[in-house]
Structures are given as C-alpha cells and as structure tokens.
C-alpha cells in the first residue's frame, strides 16, 4: 500500500516507533495463554505428528495448510481453536523449520496471501466475531481466500485518518460510498479490510469504523491504477451504495482507527534492505554487475574514476543499510527497539533512488532505451537481468520515498517519536472532521 497512516498515527502505542518495529507479537501478547509446558520440543513433536497425518509431498497446499491450521500450527501465537496454541510467535519459525526438515515439498505463505495471513488474520482474531473467525481464519491461512486492504484515498494519503469514504447505518446494514486507492490485489481479493467514516461530527480519528467487505458485493468497482512503468501494481476501488452486514464490522463503531493500527502493526515489512543478505548481495549486486561489465571507452579516465567513486559510495550506503537493519533486528530481539528501524525505512528509500540513478549512469547511452516498453498492463515488473532491472527500478524506485509513509512523514516520526522534538501547531485536532478543510 502506498499510504502510511501509522506514519501519522497519533494513536500508535508508544512501544512501536512505527510499523517497521512491530511484529505479530503486538497482537499475540493479548491473546497468549500461558502454557509453560509447551516448549520447542513439543512443537517439533506436534509438527511431526501433523506430517504423519498429512504430508506435503502427498497432498496439495490447501489440504495441508488446513490440517496445519487444525493442529494449531498455523499461527502458534493465536489462541487454541483458532489455528494457534497461544504461544510466543517465535515458535512459528520452529514449525516451518521442522516441516522443511521432513519434507522436500513445503507450502509456505504464498506471496499473494501476505495481506490476508500477515495483516488480516491478526486483525480478525483480535476484533472479528466468533462466527467470522471460525469461518474465515482457516480459509485465509489455506490460501482459499485472498484479502486486500482499503485504507488510503485520493484525498487521504499521508493524512489517511482524514479519509472521506462514508458508511451510513441502514437497519442491519451499512451503506458505503466513496473511493479507495493504492489497493494491492483488490482485483483478485475475496475480502477487503475497509475503513470508512461513520461519524463526521467528531474529530477525524474518532469517527472511523472498520469493516470486512466481500469484494463481490454489488456496487464495488475495481480499476487498475497504472504507474510510471506502465504497469498496475495497485488498484482504485469505487463504492457505490455498497451494503455491508453489521456483523462484518471489526471492533465497535468509532473504533476503526484502533483496529486499523492493529492491521498495520502486523504488516510484514522486512526492515530496510533485507538485512540477511551477504555483503555485495541484495540491491547493490545488479549495479556491481553492470559496473564490472560496463562498456569501456565511453568514459574518459577521469570520468571512470569519478563514476567508480560514485559506485563505491552506493556500495557503502547499501552495506550500511544492511548493517543498520541487522542492528535493528537485534535491538527488537533484545526487546528494546531503537531508532534503527525507522531510520532504515527512511534511508532505504533515499538510498535506493540514488542506487538506481547511478545504475543508469553506468549504463550511459544504453540508459536511453527502455526495452520493456510502456504498454499499460497489470502486474509487477520482476526481472533478473541487471540491465532491465536497473531500468525498471530507476522508474519504480521513485515511489520508495512515498509508499508506506513518505520520507517527509518518516522525518516527522524520527524527529518527534525518536528524538522527542515537539509537534507542530495542529489545525485538524479536536475539531469535528467535517469542519477540517480538505482538498
């Protein structure tokens, strides 16, 4: 999602400087039952038991993952009966390791399921009705249902809490009108997490409610949103008198912001730079390949020396991003998340833009061509060829300093939440939402 409401998020618990410091445990702590008797060995045993009953090498993903859910090994940090065992989230890794150890075939979370499994499930288990939990948790984990998230709006980007999509109560239903944007997977999703304004007469954070929307409901229109590369990673979603049963509301009426924070807290965003990669690996490696394979002769000796120095700076930046990310994870493990996480998000955006600019400079005249072309199409432009990747990322990376919180908002967060600098005078607080100027 391109929005970044946790960036602004006055309501975010102090514990997490921003969502990059927050893991699933934010939720699990609440729902964790003490079962001291269950330790790592017990988990491994239960996993092997699961494998005895259904083995990935013999069944398909849905069958296996449904069984994994029934054994409480889907979200071990969820309560028993909801795909979990009420344990610490760290045991999820134990389950995965044990499966990998005993099966050539594994069925990890599918990329397309990341929103439902990573963000939807924790929200559902915390705020959903009993009926919805029982019905939907297994299906989201099994991959049968794809979820999407609908928070951002054209008029509510950095200021997502100012959103204007309305939901009006009508008997046992809510009638939704408005528009959302930057919605990944909306065109294939069964369920959508929707935040809408149910009360315009209170300050913006207090008038929001959270709904689970069946994307097949009449009045929901999904349109691809094409971007700088000609591709559409995201969608726009329009609501025209869309009706949602009241029991699809998560939390209470007016609690929408709080529920939304839970969703975002659980967004599984790798801390900047995917720190687990080795030196010279990760985002820097295409540039290193391009540099080593560059056509010589185009640059003068001096030009080579200058560009080489620039490439070396890019290497240093990505290397330090990697180390900073490792430090961030170490700090989180140690239970005292420092500034490293927020720092990494801001730094990564700026570093990656420079990184791909330099890659084009290394390509020289070859950077003048764009072989992939700009036909409008849906999808992500993944490629392994360093040159094509550089040309794609040169364009795509412009959004790095916008999506998931603009660099400007990140600097506010670092300044206010990390450094403790005072905020600015606010004209949109303690004022009914309907009285706050909007574009």
């Amino acid at each position, binding site marked *: 999602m*391109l*929005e970044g409401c946790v960036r*602004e998020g006055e309501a975010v618990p102090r514990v997490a400087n921003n969502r990059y410091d927050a893991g699933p445990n934010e939720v699990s702590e609440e729902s964790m039952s003490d079962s001291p008797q269950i330790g790592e060995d017990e988990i491994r045993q239960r996993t092997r038991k699961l494998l005895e009953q259904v083995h990935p090498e013999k069944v398909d993903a849905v069958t296996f993952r449904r069984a994994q859910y029934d054994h409480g090994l889907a979200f071990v940090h969820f309560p028993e009966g909801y795909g979990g065992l009420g344990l610490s989230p760290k045991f999820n890794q134990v389950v995965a390791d044990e499966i990998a150890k005993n099966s050539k075939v594994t069925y990890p979370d599918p990329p397309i399921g990341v929103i439902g499994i990573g963000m939807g499930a924790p929200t559902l288990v915390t705020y959903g009705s009993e009926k919805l939990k029982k019905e939907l948790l297994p299906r989201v984990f099994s991959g049968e249902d794809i979820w999407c998230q609908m928070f951002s709006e*054209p008029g*509510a*980007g*950095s*200021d997502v809490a*100012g959103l204007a999509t309305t939901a009006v109560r009508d008997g046992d239903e809510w009638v939704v009108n408005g528009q959302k*944007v930057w919605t990944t997977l909306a065109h294939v999703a069964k369920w959508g997490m929707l935040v809408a304004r149910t009360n315009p007469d209170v300050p913006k954070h207090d008038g929001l409610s959270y709904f689970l929307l069946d994307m097949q409901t009449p009045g929901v229109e999904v349109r691809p*949103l*094409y*971007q*700088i590369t*000609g591709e559409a990673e995201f969608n726009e979603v329009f609501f025209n008198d869309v009706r949602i049963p009241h029991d699809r509301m998560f939390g209470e009426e007016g609690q929408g912001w709080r529920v939304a924070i839970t969703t975002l807290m659980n967004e599984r965003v790798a801390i900047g730079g995917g720190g687990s990669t080795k030196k010279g690996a990760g985002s820097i490696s295409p540039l290193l390949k391009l540099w080593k394979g560059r*056509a010589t*002769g*185009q*640059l*003068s000796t*001096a*030009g080579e020396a*200058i*560009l080489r120095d620039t490439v070396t700076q890019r290497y240093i930046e990505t290397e330090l991003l990697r180390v900073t990310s490792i430090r961030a994870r170490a700090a989180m493990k140690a239970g005292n998340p420092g500034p490293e996480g927020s720092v990494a998000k801001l730094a990564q955006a700026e570093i990656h*833009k420079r990184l791909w600019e330099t890659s*084009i*400079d290394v390509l*020289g*005249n070859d*950077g*003048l*061509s*764009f*072989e*992939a*072309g*700009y036909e*409008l199409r849906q999808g992500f432009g993944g490629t392994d060829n360093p040159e094509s990747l550089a*040309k794609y990322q*040169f*364009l795509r990376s*412009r*959004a790095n*300093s*916008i*999506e998931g919180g*603009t*660099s*400007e908002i990140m*600097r*506010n967060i670092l300044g206010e939440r990390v450094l403790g600098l005072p905020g*600015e005078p*606010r*004209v*949109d607080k303690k*004022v009914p939402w309907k009285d*706050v*100027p*909007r*574009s």
Partner: protein
Amino acid sequence: MAIDFSFTDEHDELRATIRQFLADKSSEQDVRAQMATETGWDRAVWAQMAEEMGLAGLIIPEEFGGAGVGYVELLVVMEEMGRALLCSPFLSTAVLASNAVLECASEAAQKDLLVGIATGQTIATLAHVEENGRWDVGGIEMRASQHGDDWQLDGSKRCVIDGHTADVILVAAKTDAGVELFRVEANAAGLERTSIPALDLTRKLATLEFSKTPAKKISQGDQAASLAIVLARTIAALAAEQTGGAQKCLDMAVDYAKTRLQFGRPIGSFQAIKHKCADMLVEVEFAKSAAYQACFEIALGAADASASCAIAKSYCSETYFHVAAENIQIHGGMGFTWEHPAHLYFKRAKASELLFGDPSHHRETLAGLIGL
C-alpha cells in the same frame, strides 16, 4: 558593455506567441498522442511551425530562407518547447543539423539543404555517435571510403535523434583530411534505420547501420573544430529546453502544494514542502543563469562561449533531473501514476541529461577550457 542577460520586449512577445501556439498544439493530450506514434511528432504541426511561425529556419540566414535570428531568440523558443514537452524534430533539424550545415558545409551544400529545412520540407539530423558511445568529436571512428568521385559509408551510428524519420542524415566520418561531413538520403541504398524503444517517448532515437551506403561529402577538409562548435551550440540550446522543463516542474509542484490539503492545511504550508520548493527555485534560477549566459555569449560571438555551454549542459541537466524528481515526490502517489504528467518530465529530464554527454563529461571539458 557587459551583458546583463535581460530580454527585450520583442523577446517577451516572441515568448508569448510561442507559449500560446504550444498551448494549442502541444497540450498534454497532444504529447501523449505523439508519444504513442512510431514517427513521434506531428507533421502538420511541424509544417505550421515552419511556414507560419518560421521556427524551422529560426537560426538559418535569410539568404537561405530562414529567419536569421540569434541565439537569444532560440533560447526563448527552446525554453517554451521544453516547458510544453513538445514532440518535434526541432532539436535535430533546426538546431543540430542546421548548425552542422552552417558550420561545416560548403556554400553550395548549404543552399541545397538549408532552404528545405527552413521551409519545413526537409527533416535533417546529425549522426556522429558510434558504438564507443562517446559524444565528443574524438569518438568518431567511422571511415568514409572514396570510389572515384563517390563516397561510401560503412558501420553504425547510435543515438541519432529523429534518425528514423529524418529525410537527410548528416554523417560525421573520417577521411584522410580528418573528420568530414557527409550527406546521406533517407532512402539511400544500404542504410538501415532502427528506432530504439526510448526511455523518453517524447524524443525518438534511432540506430543507423550503413553498408556501402552512398554518401555525398559536403565539407572541405577537417571539420573537427567546427563540429565541436556545433555540439557546443546544440547543448546550449538543449540547456535552454531543460530550463524550460525545469521551470514547468517547479510550477506544477508549487501549484499542487498550494491546493493539496492534508492535516487540514495546504501541504505547501509545511516547511518540508515549502523549503523543497525554495531549493528548487534556487536551482531553476541558476539553471536560467547558465542557459542564458551560454546563449547570450553565442549570440554575441563571445570567444569563451564553449565554457559557458559546458556549464549550461552540466548544470541544467542536473537541475532538470532533480526538480523533475522532486515534483514527483511533492505530488506523492499521484505523481507516480501514468495518468499524471510528472513522469513525462522525469523521463525527458534523464534522457536529455544523457544526450550529448553527462554532466561530469562537460565538467571535464570545462576544466580543460579554464585550465584546471
């Protein structure tokens, strides 16, 4: 008397006329339409520019049917074209090729070509970059072979602006005399023209392959020095175009910052955005200073114009790219979408930064010229 880089009322009128013309003929819609075509520009508009506006022959002497005006007028025109992101063969034909003919060609050859260019009949371009990728004259390696009075060209030329649509291609190639200029017709035998899929769809480039391609030598003796002047003047004009594009990006960003409200305030009231715009303004004003100095010096025949041209291309390239990128950032998510024009300027900015050599190349040239 020293130049003070100020414009006359005539210049201002010219600017207003061009801006109005481009508002009609080069709207965002028009630009997107041309981007999608193979040709890349509109023949009807070009005809109008040539016949009604006299733009095709702007710097061509009146004796050859041109307007015979100077580089200050060219500067004004290029600024406006850059601002409107005009898709046209102006840079290739009216600037690059015209300068090449004026500087390097024999009088007869000049007459032959310039009249056609000035009337808009002839689209022309210069092909000098080769596989080695160098933009300076020193990079020219292609050798022309003589057969009696006839000449033939073999080899390939790269990054030829409008190379796939030009009626006449001026090719820089080596003879025993040095670097000379050859005229090749679009339909010449053994000429293969391939339009490349461009990063910047508003200006098309082509790769040209020559095999035993008949060519007419239109220069007398080594043109290395003259070609260097042609390239210097072309980057001065391009710098003016970049400045116009940069000013437009600043204007877009400022307008959006005034009207886009978040947190109950125009985002331009936040110093994060306001100061970004202020820094963009400083860069744009400096870019103007660079482009203006280069073009005014050319207009006045200053001896050290080449140094100012190098400054202009290096500074205006960096400024245009930076403000085009910041314009996307200030527009947030919308600035990153296909439907918003911000990316069109961003791509034009990067492409024009690479065309004719990148900033550090021109800083190196400058360092040499000022003896660092």
